[in-house]
């Protein structure tokens, strides 16, 4: 890893640092004092929002609302099966799923991958979901020059180290599922740009493949106790237009992430008709 070195001597550095620290501290106090009072957002000494924390993004299981009675637990199917007259009313139509738009020449490929999703979807075989499919980080550790994203995913634990000090993308890394990320601040929003992807992940489900030219820009903004996350995928070779995910909101939690259980796929051989349902992650 290459770090920028200061041209100042040690003595000069100490003296300069001392003066700078006083100024920065005063500046930070001022920023913290004003912003903290106004929006309740914890901030780093440099004034940027502190995104550090463990963030419950629902992990796609928001619908699980366990009920506990004594030592017994009902995880699914806890509600009475009979529907009342009022609840029998037709449900409002769901909006169409948010999916990337492909160039016409790739429509057949997407359709084929989608039709064979049980066999072709990487996450159904425990591979990395990639970016942006992995979603917002489950935990963030922020330092002055980088943020570290940690993920507790059904496919395993993943991490991303994201410089925020102006470094360019690395040139010494292979293409990977999560790519190479750098970030900068636009106001209070952390903007993360990732490149150097392999082509082994999907943007979402239903055959949403991408090429190695994929570039993803994630925008992360903290409110008081929540994190708002969106990502836009740019892959003009195959997409008609950039595709932006549905906004997701993660909430600060004191429930720590854990080492992921091993992901061992054992179902595919027993699926008799290839049927699948919505699986956007």
């Amino acid at each position, binding site marked *: 890893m290459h770090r920028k070195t200061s041209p100042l001597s040690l003595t000069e550095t100490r003296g300069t640092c001392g003066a700078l620290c006083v100024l920065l501290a005063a500046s930070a106090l001022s920023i913290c004092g004003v912003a903290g009072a106004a929006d309740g957002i914890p901030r780093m000494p440099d004034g940027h929002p502190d995104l550090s924390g463990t963030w419950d993004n629902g992990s796609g*299981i928001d619908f699980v609302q366990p009920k506990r009675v004594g030592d017994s637990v009902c*995880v699914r199917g806890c509600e009475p099966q009979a529907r009342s007259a009022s609840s029998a009313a037709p449900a409002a139509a769901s909006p169409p*799923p948010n999916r990337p738009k492909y160039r016409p020449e790739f429509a057949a490929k997407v359709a084929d991958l989608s039709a064979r999703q049980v066999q072709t979807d990487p996450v159904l075989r425990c591979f990395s979901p990639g970016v942006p499919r992995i979603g917002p980080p489950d935990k963030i550790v922020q330092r002055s020059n980088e943020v570290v994203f940690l993920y507790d995913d059904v496919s395993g634990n993943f991490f991303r180290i994201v410089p925020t000090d102006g470094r360019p993308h690395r040139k010494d890394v292979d293409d990977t599922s999560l790519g190479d990320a750098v970030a900068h601040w636009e106001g209070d929003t952390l903007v993360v740009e990732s490149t150097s992807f392999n082509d082994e992940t999907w943007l979402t489900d239903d055959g949403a493949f991408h090429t190695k030219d994929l570039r993803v820009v994630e925008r992360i903004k903290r409110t008081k106790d929540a994190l708002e996350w969106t990502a836009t995928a740019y892959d003009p070779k195959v997409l008609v237009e950039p595709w932006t995910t549905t906004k997701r909101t993660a909430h600060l939690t004191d429930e720590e992430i854990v080492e992921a259980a091993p992901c061992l796929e054992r*179902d595919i051989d027993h699926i008799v008709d290839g049927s*699948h349902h*919505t*699986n956007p992650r």
Partner: protein
Amino acid sequence: MGDKTIVNPAIHVRWIAWIGIAALSSTTLSVAAHHSFAGEFDSTKKAQLVGTISQVEWINPHTYIHIDVKDEHGAVATWRLESLPTAMMRKAGLTKDLLMGDGSPVTADVILARDGTQNLAWVIKLAYADGHYYQLSAPQN
């Protein structure tokens, strides 16, 4: 509660009924939405097993609970009961140890595999000898 044999062990029939299930969530990302339940299990073919839990595989994308079931001749067959991802179990406060229980007989309501695989099922509910239970899936699921 003594051991008893499987109720409705008709697992040699090939069923082609399509069982539609509601999407777990169409608007949120879905850890649980791994594959279609209907593609692997036949909700019209339910059974009740009584045996002892011999192993809990704490793995993703689905946990597996192994239960040793005796038939009327005393022969023991180990069933693999597929269940929820670990994240859902954790959200419900369930751990590997809790699922294992204390070694007493357990009654398992299950749904059999569509492809006729012997001793493979989806578990709806585990009821333990002291009366407590874990309902892990909707009965029609």
